[in-house]
C-alpha cells in the first residue's frame, strides 16, 4: 500500500510566512480553451462574434491560415479569461471582452492592454506589471497571466 511517509518530498508542509508573503504580492490566472469551440462561434456568428470579442489589432495579429487563425483567436480568448480571473469582477460588474486586449509586441511576445471597466478593476485591486504566456497544441489553447499586487 502507498505510504506517503516513504516519500518525504511529497509530504505536506506548513506554508511558511515567507511563502505567504510572496503569494500575497502576486495574483495568478489561467484558462484553457477548446479551439473547435472558437471555430464554431466564428462559423455561426461571423463578424458579429469577432467584433464583440476582439479589437481590430487583435484580429490583425491573428491573420494566417484557418488553423493558425483559430488557434491564435482561442489563445486570446484564454488570455482574456485568465485576466478576468485576476480582475475578479462581481456578478454586477459589466466587463466587455473588448476591455481586455491581448496584443503582440514587435518581437512577437504577447502583452496585455486594459481599457475602461477592466482598467478600473485593475486599479482598484492594485494590479500592475502583468506578464502573459500563450500556448496552443492540437485542439487546445492555454494562457497564463500573473500580475503584481500593491506597491
Amino acid at each position, binding site marked *: 500500500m502507498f505510504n506517503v511517509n516513504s516519500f518525504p518530498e511529497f509530504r505536506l508542509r506548513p506554508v511558511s510566512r515567507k511563502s505567504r508573503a510572496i503569494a500575497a504580492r502576486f495574483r495568478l490566472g489561467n484558462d484553457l480553451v477548446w479551439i473547435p469551440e472558437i471555430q464554431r462561434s466564428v462559423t455561426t456568428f461571423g463578424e458579429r462574434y469577432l467584433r464583440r470579442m476582439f479589437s481590430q489589432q487583435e484580429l490583425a495579429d491573428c491573420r494566417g491560415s484557418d488553423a493558425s487563425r483559430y488557434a491564435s483567436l482561442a489563445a486570446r480568448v484564454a488570455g482574456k479569461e485568465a485576466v*478576468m480571473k485576476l480582475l475578479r469582477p462581481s456578478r454586477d460588474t459589466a466587463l466587455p471582452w473588448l476591455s481586455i486586449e491581448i496584443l503582440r509586441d514587435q518581437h512577437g511576445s504577447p502583452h496585455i492592454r486594459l481599457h475602461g471597466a477592466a482598467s478600473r478593476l485593475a486599479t482598484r485591486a492594485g494590479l500592475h506589471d502583468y506578464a502573459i504566456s500563450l500556448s496552443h497544441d492540437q485542439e487546445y489553447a492555454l494562457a497564463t497571466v500573473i500580475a503584481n499586487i500593491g506597491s
Partner: protein
Amino acid sequence: MSKEKIRQILKEQGKFSSNVDSLADDADLYEAGMTSHASVNVMLALEDAFDLEFPDRMLKRSVFESINAINAAIEELTA
C-alpha cells in the same frame, strides 16, 4: 413564450452537461455548467432571436445567470 425561446437557445448554445428542461427559471446557469464564452454565444443567439443588441453595460454575469434574469434583460431592451 420568451422563456421557452430562451430555453431553446440555451439548449443550442449553452454547452450544459445537464438537461436544460430540468432547470428552474431561477436556477444559476453558470453553476449548471455554462462558461463565460458559452454565454457570448447565448447572447449573440438571443440578439438574433429577439432582434436586439445587448449594450456593454449589460455584459455582466448577473444578466445571464438565469432564465429569469435573461428574460428581464430582454424585456428591458424591448420595452
